[in-house]
């Protein structure tokens, strides 16, 4: 996949270097483990919840001069894929304009996690990206 914003492209290129599935999974788990929850008070507002994400993910966007920043709360200790993708989006979308965010393809999920995700799982992750797009629209 080409044409991604530079930080997202770096993630995709790095994960593509792994031929071994287990090693790639460990790399994604490392990303998940670097995720930290934001300081928003609980309960998180319903309007911030990503629809259809089994792991209960919440997103907040903030526009500042020059671009957007996003925060993600993954309210499920077993939501590892969601934590990894939250970290990737948080870093990768930071500072991008609305137009740049809109152009990030949903297939980014498959580039990161591969095609072996269940359909439900992949849709939940895609909805995290789509929620960012809606916030930035």
């Amino acid at each position, binding site marked *: 996949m080409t044409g991604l914003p530079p930080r997202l492209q770096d993630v995709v290129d790095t994960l593509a270097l792994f031929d071994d599935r287990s090693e790639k999974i460990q790399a994604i788990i490392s990303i998940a483990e670097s995720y930290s929850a934001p300081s928003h008070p609980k309960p998180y507002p319903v309007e911030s919840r990503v629809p259809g994400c089994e792991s209960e993910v919440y997103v907040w966007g903030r526009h500042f001069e020059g671009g957007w920043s996003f925060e993600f709360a993954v309210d499920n200790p077993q939501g590892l894929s969601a934590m990894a993708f939250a970290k990737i989006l948080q870093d990768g979308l930071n500072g991008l304009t609305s137009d740049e965010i809109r152009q990030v393809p949903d297939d980014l999920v498959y580039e990161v996690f591969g095609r072996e995700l*269940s359909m439900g799982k992949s*849709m939940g992750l895609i909805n995290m990206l789509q929620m960012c797009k809606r916030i930035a629209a």
Partner: protein
Amino acid sequence: MNATANRSDVTTDKLVSTEWVAENMGDSNIRLVESNEDPLVYHQGHIPGAIEIDWIRDLNDAIRRDYLSNEAFSELLSKAGIGPDTTVVFYGDKNNWWATYTLWVFELFGFTNSKIMDGGSLKWKNEGRELTKEIPNVAVAPKQNWTRDDSTIRAFRDEVLSHQKQSGQLIDVRSPMEFSGERTHMEGYPNEGALRGGHIPGAKSIPWAKAVNPETGEFLSLDELNALYGSFSKDNETIVYCRIGERSSHTWFVMKYLLGHPNVRNYDGSWTEWGNLVGVPIEK
């Protein structure tokens, strides 16, 4: 051996506690199998000695909508070091949703020497029990010939239609919004949708997760389960369904093994088939 050490209310030997697994996980005749919705979970840490079975990669035909072939299943069990006398204990994330699905697929092929660890990986982790990232080296078991029997615990659309026409017992385990037809797919799962919304006429709505304590991941007590499913007669056949047959495998397990209904089948075609079929009855 008291398999259900902390569950004096259920008599099935299909359910084992985390304590039982901790005491028996070194037994070479027991194979622990983790099945998850999230493919990262096993690799972050699993019960020592547990192998992973992934339902997409391992249990489904890669091309057509069906489960794996007899040959592929026989190969899978051989590589997993599972013979006919091996006791397989399934567990996983999301309240054992995927673990019960894997158990159901195993049972399709006649493998019934299986159990579910009550509470799944959530309870195991909450209790601070040992986890490892080490993938076990499993000794290959002699290959057996396993044969899938689709007639006993699996239901197909024509059978469901016939069952419905005879006012047979049906349980729809999807969300209330899917049952009512307000949604044609589970929230956020548009690719698993259908052209029509609603439910099979006569089906009762009991969302699958109601059978589980969300705090512990354990199945509810027998009294609570009886209150939930008490209107269904054990004397009659029950067919359960959801969207693609995974959530309903959880309810199938509850009905068959915890409540002791002898004749329960899972309609894995479920709403993604029924809601797209021409001419079948639908109720909203």
